[in-house]
């Protein structure tokens, strides 16, 4: 959000962070044109499509790793799985929403954010420890929430509009997209869009083996994605209805780990997803309400082709379905606001694996209360969660779960002067829990039906300073600082009981703290010459407190750097805009035990972008050229999955 307020007030006006006031009334939106999230009760950060360029961001994963507290697990290349965990809580605690509703994966409990192409997104928002929104689907109030807003949900515009784009890049990447938007009358708009993405992902990397260094190339890594979606928007006098239908398919080969002396991986993964969702939002006087529904169908067909398996291949086929309904209402008077929301979801899965017909009903309810008076905003919320598990074929069902989890936050506007300088301070506490995924509960040789939910507690405090040091040359500055302390109990962990049997059990305990600093600034050198700066620094200290006899006790958990940061500078001018970014991470270990063999050294990656827009009559052309990892830094985020070195990407976008 900080970026938005500094970089694109116009985009902000189109995309207020409060989805419930979303485009209900243009007048209302214009009036609320204050920097998004500045008074948020919990840490929140939003990066929009303008900032994607200004920060030289090239992928969704790249956008997320620029944010404070985020660890992106990236298996490398366009086809590599990318998951997001925040403040060391684990990816299963991060909810990813797409156009307002959660993207579900009950099997793995984590979302591959690599499947959302940046070019199809208008903004990405990360919120930690709950939500500043009083009224929102209960699932969206998570330990961490990544909200992805698609370009398909653009505000209502009259007439017919066509957008087409073509990206082409290193390692055989080509990505054409198109979108057609048509209004019908003054209240209705439909859009359809499509996206094709192909990449070979056969990037070179440096392999170190003892004292030898060799140049290798990733193999068996190509992918092909088709996706399409249709959107409908209709405005009533006091409400708005949106609907969306989408289909996505991804056929890819998995390159597997880099293993010394051999390269014969033959894994294939085919994924398909179809989803339909609709949302109705209402706002009148003191009342706000919403109702939404979603159906999501996903299949995953995995094959590891090798003669060692019966039938010559190990095949794992899964089909998941989810029916999801959510709704709620809020009412406010005299500074008080109360909201109630409820979510119901039914998820099921079947597969060709032994004992894998499982289903789950979940009912989540949240009751929220907020008081606002002058500089004070205090919020309390209680969430009640009920999970019921069912199975077929005589398999024991996973344990049911229920729990009440509280959260509370206070924001105090400590300072406000006549030049627009404000200082907001916040303090918050949140408990949340996650139930075991279907894999953790049922996977053959690994799952356990006795698992308890994994519980997290977050306590944090922070401040946001927003200022306009000079109306002529330094129009905006935003500084934030946040500190936190986290506890994870009953962490769900897979361990071998002996050589032969692995079990998934509740045995992890993690304690951690951290500090997150960010700065965003804009300078005006001349009328049309602006310089933008973004800085983020994250300190994370966490320790495993599980078993004093184990080699991991007291150590920083796997894949969590102590220090991480990013910076980006953009120079915008009438000729060609330039942005430079740097993302860096301290050393990490790929195992909870810190072994010399599993140390991943620190790295820094540098990127450049050149971009320019042209207008030819009604046609607007956006051109962008990226140089990614300009210094060809060789590094791994996940051990044995090297990241790509130097690469380029060219994008041409036309809007009519």
């Amino acid at each position, binding site marked *: 959000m900080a970026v938005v307020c500094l970089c694109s007030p116009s985009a902000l006006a189109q995309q207020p962070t409060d989805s419930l006031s979303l485009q209900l009334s243009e007048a209302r939106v214009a009036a609320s044109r204050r920097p998004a999230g500045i008074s948020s009760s919990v840490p929140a950060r939003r990066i929009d499509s303008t900032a994607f360029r200004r920060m030289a961001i090239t992928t969704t994963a790249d956008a997320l790793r620029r944010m404070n507290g985020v660890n992106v697990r990236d298996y490398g290349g366009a086809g590599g799985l990318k998951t997001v965990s925040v403040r060391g809580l684990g990816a299963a605690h991060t909810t990813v929403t797409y156009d307002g509703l959660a993207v579900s994966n009950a099997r793995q409990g984590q979302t591959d954010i690599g499947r959302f192409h940046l070019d199809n997104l208008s903004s990405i928002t990360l919120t930690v420890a709950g939500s500043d929104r009083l009224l929102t689907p209960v699932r969206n109030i998570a330990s961490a929430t990544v909200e992805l807003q698609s370009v398909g949900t653009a505000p209502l515009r009259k007439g017919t509009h066509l957008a087409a784009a073509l990206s082409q890049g290193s390692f055989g990447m080509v990505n054409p997209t198109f979108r057609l938007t048509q209004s019908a009358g003054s209240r209705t708009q439909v859009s359809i869009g499509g996206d094709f993405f192909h990449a070979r992902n056969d990037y070179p990397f440096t392999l170190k083996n003892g004292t030898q260094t060799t140049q290798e190339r990733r193999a068996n890594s190509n992918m092909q994605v088709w996706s399409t979606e249709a959107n409908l928007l209709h405005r009533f006098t006091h409400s708005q209805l949106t609907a969306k239908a989408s289909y996505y398919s991804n056929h890819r080969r998995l390159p597997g780990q880099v293993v*010394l002396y051999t390269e014969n991986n033959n894994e294939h993964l085919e994924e398909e997803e179809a989803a339909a969702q609709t949302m109705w939002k209402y706002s009148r006087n003191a009342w706000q309400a919403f109702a939404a529904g979603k159906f999501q169908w996903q299949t995953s067909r*995995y094959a590891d082709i090798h003669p*060692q398996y*019966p039938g010559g291949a190990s095949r794992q086929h899964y089909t998941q379905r989810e029916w999801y309904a959510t709704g709620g209402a809020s009412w406010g008077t005299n500074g008080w606001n109360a909201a109630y929301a409820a979510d119901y979801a039914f998820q099921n899965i079947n597969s060709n694996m032994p004992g894998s017909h499982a289903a789950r009903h979940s009912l989540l309810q949240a009751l929220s209360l907020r008081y606002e008076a002058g500089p004070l905003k205090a919020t309390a919320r209680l969430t009640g969660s009920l999970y019921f598990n069912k199975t077929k074929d005589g398999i024991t069902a996973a344990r049911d779960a229920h729990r009440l989890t509280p959260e509370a936050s206070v924001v105090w506007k400590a300072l406000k002067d006549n030049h627009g300088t404000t200082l907001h301070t916040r303090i918050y506490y949140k408990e949340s829990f996650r139930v075991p995924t279907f894999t953790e509960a049922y996977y053959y040789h690994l799952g356990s039906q006795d698992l308890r939910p994994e519980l997290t507690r977050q306590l944090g405090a922070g401040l946001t300073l927003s200022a306009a040091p000079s109306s002529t040359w330094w129009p905006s500055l935003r500084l934030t600082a946040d500190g936190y302390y986290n506890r994870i109990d009953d962490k769900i962990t897979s361990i071998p009981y002996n050589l*032969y*049997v*692995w079990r998934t059990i509740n045995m992890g305990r993690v304690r951690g703290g951290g500090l997150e600093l960010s700065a965003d600034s804009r300078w005006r050198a001349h009328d049309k010459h602006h310089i933008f700066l973004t800085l983020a620094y994250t300190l994370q200290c966490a320790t495993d407190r599980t078993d004093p006899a184990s080699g991991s006790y007291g150590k920083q958990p796997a894949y969590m750097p102590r220090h991480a940061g990013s910076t980006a500078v953009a120079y915008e001018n009438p000729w060609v805009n330039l942005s430079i970014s740097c993302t860096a991470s301290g050393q990490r270990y790929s195992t909870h*035990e810190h*072994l010399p063999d599993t140390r991943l050294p620190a790295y820094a990656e540098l990127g450049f972008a050149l971009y320019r827009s042209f207008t030819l009559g009604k046609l607007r052309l956006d051109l962008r050229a990226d140089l990614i990892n300009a210094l060809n830094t060789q590094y791994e985020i996940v051990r044995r999955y090297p990241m790509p070195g130097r690469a380029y990407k060219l994008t041409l976008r036309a809007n009519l």
Partner: protein
Amino acid sequence: MKQLQLALITLLAALNFYACADDEPSLPPSQPTTTGADGAFVLNQGNMYDGIAGTLDFLDFSTDAYTSGLFLQANGVQLGDTPQAGVVYGSRLYVAMYGSNLVWCIDAASGRIVRQIAMPSPEGICAADGYVYVSCNDGYLARIDTLSLEADAKRLEVGPNPAGVCSANGSVYVAISDGYNYANDYANGFRVVRVNTSDFSKQAEIIVGMNPNIVQADAQGNIFAVCQGNYGMGTTEVKPEVWKITPDNSASTFVPATSIAVRENTLYTIYNYTNYTTNESTLNYRAYSCETGAVLKENLLSLNDLPAAPISIFVNPDDGHIYVTGDRSVYDYNSPGYVYRYAPDGSLVKRYDAGSHPFAVVFK
């Protein structure tokens, strides 16, 4: 999912294999010339899932010096992934590298590479009559000519997921585990295939228990096959047990064990069994008579110095010292583990700091 698949693959890889029988002094001279007088190589399996490569260590008996990472020191490159088993034959050590799809031929004196021999997912390894025999997880037995160091073009099809191998009676015995067919109760395993070394042909298929993965020979040419069962995860629980195969190919159940070693006519065992469904665990160390199956020693190892998290058991044919490899703790399978050395009376001689997941000891 990928991680879980890897975990499963790692676990299945771990299900298999073991070092072949270290050879008995009474075996004919065409058998490996291992004596156990000089020292012992230790194969640390690492953890492929967590990206920890395997390593090779050496314990020198004359100086009691333990060299960690001998292979890297001697060659400047890493050993590779998931060493499963090794055999000393002549002046060379041969190591089956499951994850790296190769067999290393290493000079046993210096640790230097003599030859890298490509091999699809090798598991068990043993030597006889001028050849090194390697079971490959894709269903075949391969052999390497120890003079030319070339693998035979022809591999012998033996059955799904062959595991441990050993040589005795002019034959190589291969345990057929069908380990990846757990969903069908390992239905196509249940056997040990006996291969003639004279013409590299199948002589017999001997029916044993479920999921055999270790085979060892005693001084009389009896073969002991450890059948791991189904870890309590099938429709009915099948517990681990050792089957005994006599030289005339008749087989019968013998004693319970999950890891074994043979010296002369004594069977040394670890029984370390967890029923997956009930989570009940049993762990004991015993010695049995190879002839009768009678318990020779109820507590093989000193109860005061038991391994924290045992993996496999080995016995030095030369002096009868017992070696048990183990992880640092039950929940810590990545940290450097230990090799525990016990005197024949079961008292702990010394605990050596090994690498990650020490899996096999090969006597030189």
